[in-house]
């Protein structure tokens, strides 16, 4: 469990990083290293060059505006977990990062790195999707924005090709009259979830349900957002049948079987977690909606 030989570069600017990436098609960006380094150690990945971006200035910022939260490439999960300002604009950030592995991993692992890694068991890929977020990709040609729908291609696979650094991720603000919740079931505390669910419930001015969206962890090959509105549309927030939304969710997902859980069991959990998180999210939405 020792990595194959690789070159190591620690550029001091984004331009320099992109130069190194452009010069070596086998190069890979290293940020927190919490997913990449185990892959190297197991020789499941053998990039020719590791481009360590930890010394690139300007990538460690969290910008919070009324529109949303822009998270720089070097921001660690732990920082988002404890950023009350960011949570005020988009509560899912803190709620989801609380479920990312263990403190030691949250202290090193980056939220943007986790998204670029595109693991369907990752919390932050799902949150990017659920919030309708995007990433900013820097290439030698300039910067572009890639929406979540265009980003995730398959497990551990994104649409980003060629010399590129994902410099930030943008999570739009929680819409008004909305509430969120996030929950996971893992075999052990801090493990990758057997199943996780993030939800957003939006009410109309009469406190009736107007929109319900959910995204799941460890269910499916890429993050997806499921619209569950039809199960509860127009129902008063106190009288909505969240179990019905859970039942609907079960019909929409296509989970896989692995050594930890059967597809059927994951589908069961999708229903249970949907109902539980929607109950919590609806309560929050109601609190945020004037009576």
């Amino acid at each position, binding site marked *: 469990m*020792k990595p*194959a030989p690789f070159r190591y570069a620690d550029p001091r600017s984004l331009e320099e990083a992109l130069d190194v990436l452009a010069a070596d098609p086998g190069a890979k960006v290293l940020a927190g290293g919490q997913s990449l380094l185990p892959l190297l150690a197991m020789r499941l990945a053998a990039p020719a060059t590791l481009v360590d971006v930890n010394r690139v200035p300007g990538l460690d910022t969290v910008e919070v505006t009324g529109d949303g939260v822009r998270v720089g490439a070097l921001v660690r999960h732990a920082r988002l977990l404890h950023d009350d300002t960011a949570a005020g604009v988009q509560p899912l950030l803190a709620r989801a990062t609380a479920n990312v592995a263990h403190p030691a991993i949250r202290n090193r692992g980056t939220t943007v790195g986790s998204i670029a890694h595109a693991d369907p068991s990752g919390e932050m890929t799902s949150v990017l999707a659920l919030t309708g977020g995007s990433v900013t990709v820097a290439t030698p040609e300039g910067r572009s924005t890639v929406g979540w729908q265009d980003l995730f291609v398959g497990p551990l696979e994104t649409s980003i090709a060629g010399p590129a650094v994902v410099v930030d991720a943008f999570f739009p603000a929680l819409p008004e009259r909305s509430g969120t919740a996030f929950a996971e079931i893992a075999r052990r505390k801090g493990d990758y979830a057997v199943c996780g669910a993030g939800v957003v419930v939006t009410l109309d001015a009469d406190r009736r349900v107007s929109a319900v969206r959910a995204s799941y962890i460890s269910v499916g090959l890429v993050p997806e957002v499921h619209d569950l509105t039809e199960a509860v549309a127009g129902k008063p927030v106190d009288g909505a049948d969240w179990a019905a939304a859970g039942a609907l969710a079960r019909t929409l997902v296509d989970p896989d079987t692995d050594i930890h*859980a059967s597809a059927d*069991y994951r589908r*069961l959990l999708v229903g249970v977690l949907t109902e539980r998180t929607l109950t919590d999210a609806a309560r929050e939405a109601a609190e945020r909606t004037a009576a």
Partner: protein
Amino acid sequence: MTTKLFGEPVRRREDARLIIGKGRYLDDIGAGALAAAFVRSPHAHARITDVDVEAALDVEGLVAIYTYEDLTGPMAEPLPVLIPHPQLHAPRTGYALANGMVNHVGEPVVMVVATDRYLAEDAAERIVVTYEELPVVVGVDAAREARAVVHEDIPDNVAARHHQETGDVEPTLAASPHTLSFTQYIERSACMPLEGKGVHARWDPDDASLRVHSSTQASTSVRAAIAAKLELSLDRVEVVAPDVGGGFGVKIVHPWPEELLVPMAAIRLGHEVKWAEDRREHFISSAHERQQRQEITVGYDDDGRITALDVHVWHDNGAYTPYGIIVPIVTATQLVGPYALPVYRVVVESVYTNTVIVTPYRGAGRPQGCYAMERTMDRVADALGLDRAEVRRRNLITPDQFPYDHHLTFQDGRPVIYDSGDYPGLLDKLVALVGWDEAAALRADAQARGKLLGVGMALYVEGTGPGPYEGGHVQVLGSGKVLVSTGLTSQGQGHETVFAQIVASELGVSMDDVEVHTGDTRRFGYAVGTFASRAAVMSGNAVALAARGVREKAIRIAAEVLEANPEDLEIDEGLVQVKGTPGASIPLRTVAVLSNPLRYAFDEAAKQATQFAGPGDDSKPPVAPGDAPGLEHRDYYSPIRSTFASGAHAAVVEIDPQTWEIDVVRYAVVHDCGNVVNPMIVEGQVHGGVAQGVGGALYERMAYDADGQLQNASFMDFLMPYASEVPDVVIDHQETPSPLNPLGIKGAGEAGVIPGTAAIASAIEDATGRRIASMPISPTELYDLMRDETAERTAASQQTSLQTGVPA
């Protein structure tokens, strides 16, 4: 007396060193050593048709490559069958490097030595081994059915048929008022010490000697194995176990291929060589344990008293049998637990599979035996509508029945005769400790919170401290320091503390003056090893006897100096003194000086022992015939047979009927290991054991696929429980001293793990009303069981119409 430390919760003296990173583990040794890595089989069963090392030869830093062709003499022969047994009719072992065949994924095929481990792995990656794949046998049922075979010349895959019986089972069963038959399974897990195996070897060509460090539980026997395999004289080989980061059984197996190959390479290359096992290697090339299929028939009367028990176990021993049939024997003989069984018959068929070898893992066959016996008790109770505790009580051996002879033969070849115990006492304490009789109220409370609650219990008896022997050496230096040495090894259990407690208590010195060394053949050449909960019993008694020898000699010498009667002397706080006569005393360190008549003085203290220091007795030689210089003594403890510890565990589980998550909310342990040397250490052993018990019941398994590939060979997917998964454990002690040894102690190392699977299975069954016949069980499996209309329901659940919320 101020130095009686036996029985006190003395803090572990090794912890400061180990916790702050001052431990010296295998990989801390030999910074300049060459590094070894191995090409291991990627196939579970294959013939090797070619090994091509060409592409590796230009890797910079490559030093040597060894294949089977490079092995000579005894190294080219199969690895030893460590513990032969007449019923092991078809033993098989692998080779240090595969000889044309591989029988499990992970078997070593090529050894690579390079200037560092990275380069060794680079070279290993380039070696091309061509295999011709063969049909694969995975799992005990596939082995039993034998549609494919592991070893060509063993068509039924059966390595051993172990058989014991205490009477005529069939007529007794036929005459029994009731009988029950059932089959159940238990899965594989593994020791998983945080430090894997590892070997470092240094050959001194000038001295023609070899010094090997190995992360082992048996340094003396590793030494003998290396000497034999490398054709060296025993006195030219020393083996040291440094700090060892956990063993739990896997490191008692030896010689591992690497334990022979690393020294071989060190000699051939004239350079120190090291191999430190990585986690993936540990998963696929060390050892596992526990998988069995158990077919049980029990006869019993209307009161739930067992009349006869007939057990047929199919035991998966993996690809080879280097450790003999110890695990099957332990299952067979420890299965009977604390119960008086009028007639018992057991057959264990030990079968080959194309998987990692099965050798003792903490508990070593006992968790399986306990699972068989205790789940039988649960079934009998359920069938008769009786309380599970009551059925157990009616079958217990009573205190007046000791010594109790089961008429079975134990793993040490000696009779299973329980030396002492109070099993009804254990059960009474357990029922009180866990609140067994209040289970209905707990269940109602849980139900109000939307949870299913169940309670379960399991009792066990554990044969501990088997022979043949251990030794101890105690030496008092002129400085007053007391050196204690024993040959068995330590893996973090607290030996330095407990052996120091014992010696300090026996000798009458401060613990601060006592220094303990273990597992170093340079200090103590005769030892057996650390396994079977034997260190405290074996080496504890041996160092106690050695200390008593030192004490006797010290008093004899001091009596001459003080001109006192030896019977009037005592030793306390390092001072030999006349009882009740303050001032009439001599420090033990001075006695040590005087014990060694000197010609040369090298310090102030030594002057006292030189030839002109004082008036001597010219009529006697300075060292009397039969005496020896120095204040030291070596002694051995060899037991007539094992001593039997016992205990009772209870688990309370809560199950979420929506997600089928299983939470152990309370875990109670009553534990009897005879006289306790250090209750804090015993409790620590219990805690660690319970954690492994919970792991084995709910989390851990070896997920082999049908091709013999281990799907979860990492700590990401092998679910060893974290602290967050382990319940708080409440413990009550009972002390029934062993009459067999001077200190009256019994072993405590493995106890905590033994009843976990049985107790938790019982609790889940109680909570859900579904028969639990395969362990471990995960939420996804419990969900499948709950929605299976054909799944067996307990009689109790039908009588009480238990609400179990069967899902849609």
